[in-house]
């Protein structure tokens, strides 16, 4: 039987094919368009019809056997080729990756962001304002007249043109109220300046967050509740607030506030964070005077409101245990690069 030989020969060639290219050649030789088996099939027409059928079946069986073997061998060779490629592509994944830069935010601004997020949730508008101020907005309109001993508390950088570097963010209370009508809820963030020699806890430049709420029937209890909300936002649900009487000329009554902090990493304690109080009627009067001078209606008389102020440096120093306020502006990458991710 020549077919048997043909089949045997083909199957041997298939098994012997070392790679896909050789296998393709074997396929062409036997079952290609002019392959040996294909030719046999083509010669069927020359046979008498009675033989044709049986002969055809025989040749088809051979062809089928060859096709099957081809398929199997192809699968084996493809697998081997893939394995070889994968083996050749292996790399040491323990080597470090391309050192792309990773950025971060400054710790002061992270604290600001935490604070403003709390106040935005409470419906406050976050604003900034000029750092160069005039004496009227920084002092006079805030019930600190030129002769007042409270001026000693805020040593001032004066400018050659008679203006000054704002000693607190409170002048923005005045500016905002002159431009807007009550009711209002704002927080102000920004740099402030004091004529002070620098040391570990004092800086000539630092930051403040100032809050102001004005409306009808705003009370000191509202102020305490607001500070308590902030405390819980910053230090978790166990935070508490303590108010003690204090004095700031632009509020009456005035208070200092401290927050009880359950410190997860150290001693739990009261943190004295800032000052606050009910807006002094003289401030409302000064605002109305400025409004009137600008052709606007007097709208603040008889309103009540509260204001508070605190320093993000102090919060950051207490929260993260930063020993020296000057670290914030030295911009040592080993220091400021630490304040990333959730800091707890």
């Amino acid at each position: 039987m020549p077919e048997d030989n043909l089949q045997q020969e083909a199957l041997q060639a298939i098994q012997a094919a070392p790679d896909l290219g050789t296998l393709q050649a074997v396929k062409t030789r036997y079952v290609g368009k002019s392959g040996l088996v294909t030719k046999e099939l083509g010669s069927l027409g020359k046979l008498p019809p009675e033989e044709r059928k049986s002969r055809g079946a025989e040749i088809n069986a051979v062809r089928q056997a060859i096709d099957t073997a081809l398929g199997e061998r192809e699968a084996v060779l493809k697998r081997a080729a893939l394995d070889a490629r994968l083996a050749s592509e292996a790399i040491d994944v323990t080597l470090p990756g391309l050192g792309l830069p990773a950025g971060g935010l400054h710790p002061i601004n992270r604290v600001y962001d935490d604070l403003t997020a709390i106040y935005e949730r409470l419906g406050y508008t976050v604003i900034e304002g000029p750092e160069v101020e005039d004496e009227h907005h920084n002092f006079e309109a805030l019930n600190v007249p030129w002769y007042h001993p409270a001026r000693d508390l805020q040593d001032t950088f004066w400018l050659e043109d008679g203006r000054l570097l704002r000693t607190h963010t409170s002048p923005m209370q005045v500016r905002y109220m002159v431009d807007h009508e009550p009711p209002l809820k704002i927080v102000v963030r920004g740099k402030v300046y004091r004529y002070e020699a620098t040391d570990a806890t004092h800086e000539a430049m630092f930051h403040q967050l100032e809050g102001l709420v004005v409306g009808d029937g705003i009370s000191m209890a509202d102020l305490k509740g607001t500070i308590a909300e902030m405390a819980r936002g910053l230090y978790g649900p166990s935070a508490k607030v303590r108010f003690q009487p204090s004095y700031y000329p632009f509020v009456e009554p005035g208070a200092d506030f401290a927050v009880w902090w359950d410190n997860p990493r150290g001693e739990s304690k009261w943190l004295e964070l800032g000052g606050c109080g009910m807006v002094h009627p003289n401030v409302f009067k000064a605002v109305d005077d400025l409004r009137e001078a600008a052709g606007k209606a007097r709208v603040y008389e008889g309103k009540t409101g509260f204001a508070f102020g605190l320093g993000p440096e102090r919060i950051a120093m207490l929260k993260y245990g930063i020993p020296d306020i000057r670290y914030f502006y030295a911009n040592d990458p080993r220091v400021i690069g630490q304040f990333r991710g959730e800091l707890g």
Partner: protein
Amino acid sequence: MKLPYSWLQELVPQLPPAPDLEPVLASMGLPLEGIEEVPAPAEGVVLAAVTAAEPLEGTQLTRLSLDVGPHGARTIASGAPNAVGLSAGTMVALVTPGTRLGDVEYGVRAMQGVESWGMAASAKELGIGEASAGLLLFPAGTAAPGTPLRELWAADRVLDVEVTPNRADVLSALGLARDLAAFLGLALVEPEAGPQPSGEGEIRVVLPPRGVTLERDPSQKLRFGCDHFAARTVSGVQNGPSPLWMQRRLTLAGMRPIDLIVDTSNYVMLELGQPTALYDRRDVQGDQIIVSFGLRQGETVRDLLGGEHTVGPEDLLIRDGREVQIPTVAEAFATAGEAQPGQGVLGIAGIVGGDHGHVRADTEDVVIESAHFDPVLLRRTSTRLGLKTDAVYRYERGVDPLLAPRGANRVAGLLAQHGGGRPFPGATVVGQPDLPGPIEATGEQIRALLGMEVGTDEMAALLTRLGCGVERDGDHLTVTPPSWRVDLSIWQDLAEEVARLHGYAHLPETLPTLRVHTSNLGAERASQERATLRRTLSGLGFQEVVTYTFTSDEEAGKARSERPGVRLRNPLTADRTGMRTALYPSLLKAAQAHPKGERALLFEIGRIFPAEGEQERLGLLMRGPLAPQTHAPGVAGNFRAFRGLAEAFAASLGAELDVRQRRGDAVPPALHPGIAGEVVWNGQGVGWLGALHPEIAQAFGLKGDTFLLEAGLPLPGRAWAFRDPSRAPAAWRDLAVIAPNAASYGDIAALLRREAGELLESVEPFDVYEGAPIPEGQRSLAVRLVFRGARTLTDAEVDPVMDRLIQAVRAQGWSIREK
């Protein structure tokens, strides 16, 4: 303010123990800065009288010869600076041999040939005080030599109370005791009043006219000068050391004992809060005191410490009765101001006594001045003269205007008790201080402001405890504050007192409820945009920095930024004399904090202060590799990488960033003249970027390339809203333009965009080539142009556009590189 606990306890006998006072005082608004434990001095420390003090040649030491009573005559060598020239009789605290202080046992030593018998000690060495200016000294005759110090000097605690400027009333033992008693509901024992006067005094007093208006006072309020003056005389005082208990209290309060007369004046100030000035009657010519403004410009006054001050028509002076023509303030101003010593000036009112008239060791007849002066006037003079005394500290905050006679009587009483003086029965009291009228309030008003339920009857009771006169009519209160509470003037002040005495701890916690006011909406946009910028840059790998806004001419020169126009009148240091005019010098300084050769990728959002006004700015800086080389190549930190980051930043914000080449004079002075461009953000020029000029880099010690971008904020928003993407396929064409090197890619791309019109979707460079066959000084810039329309574009639509582009290129004098 420092006060010994024992003093307060004398006035409030049921006062809780000192350690328990800290939270009490804090809740009164008078937090403690500290409590100093003052132990009694060790046994073996005795008082010794100096008999001679001689310097030891060739050393810093002084040999003190001492009378130590039962221990005989002894010598010691002392290195204390105040041992030099001690007058005979002055007493020192002597640590006798065999006494232990801490770990040290003192003995007899030979020092520079002197047999040093123990040691003369400072308060600090004895553990009884912080002051360590030198030896603890006592006036002559304080006690018999050899008296153990602890017999007179018991253990105590000093409370250091932080007093806010509004609470002048507690700047004395009486004031603090009074507030404690009111707060705790305890009984107060008033200090001795002194002999009550009957009839007129021996000294005539003339006060200045009321109602003077100061020049340069923006408020133009009438100033009264002096509205209450008590003068009393005591004759036959034997001046000498004050009693030890008085010295002890003065020392613990931080004052130095001098002699009975001076100490009495200081003691009464600490006790009652009333400053007094005591004069030697021999110098008070005509038995008359004239309180007047300066007679002319340029009057000079020498104070009792020898300091010389120039005063003028707005400074209040105390004069004796010699005849002078007292001009009005206006006349005095008109007087030509040649500096001349003032005649008969006893002192600058309420601030400091004069060289003329002050009490001395041999003073016997004393004139007591106890007065109330205008706080504004005194503050003004003391600030101008730079004289901050304990007296003016109290006056400028507000001394009880009715206290003057009581102060004078108390001084007279103490001088009689301890110096054998004879107070004249009568006293001169002139002036009539204006007391603020009653304050009207309602309980409801106060409750609403506090948000706390306090009954009106309780309010009345609390205010009465403070010393207020309270009349109640239903919910209405008419409250007359006591004369010492000069800080109470409006009903909100009463609300604070009610809250303080009721307890701030009882304030409830509520949240404000407000109507919406539409004019206040939308103001938060700027803050949110800023936050987005910061987070985007941080996400791209930039570290945020916050830097000092101060600068100096020198630094601006070094950085070639504009010289500061906002300049400090009182700079703290020479490197901070003005405010920065650009952000990049701050970024360069921040980069200096990074290790050399390492990547620094920084940004800051901050304010600059050029002459035309304050602006908010964004600055970026890049140094070092974008990714460092390790076992495999990194990514170079070159201009292309920096610009790529800027582009990614813009793309993240949905903005179009373009850069226009800057050349010649248009290059910002900070930049390398060949690597400089204008930043165009959504079509508007907002700032600049480029490489730092190498000379500036050298001046800042920054080796290697530094790239900078600085732009004004806020950045302009984009002009389009939404573009519906076309589903039609793109058609593309490549074009290589040969142009002189001076023609930037930006110029060429802009030309192509302009000429191509709407069908052109994008232009991207894919090859920049210089060299043969391109002529010298020129280059070939190959760009891929992508066209897209609403429908599939045909050649018939694109080809005419390409022809137009080629024509336009040629019209510039450039050429097209053929394939």
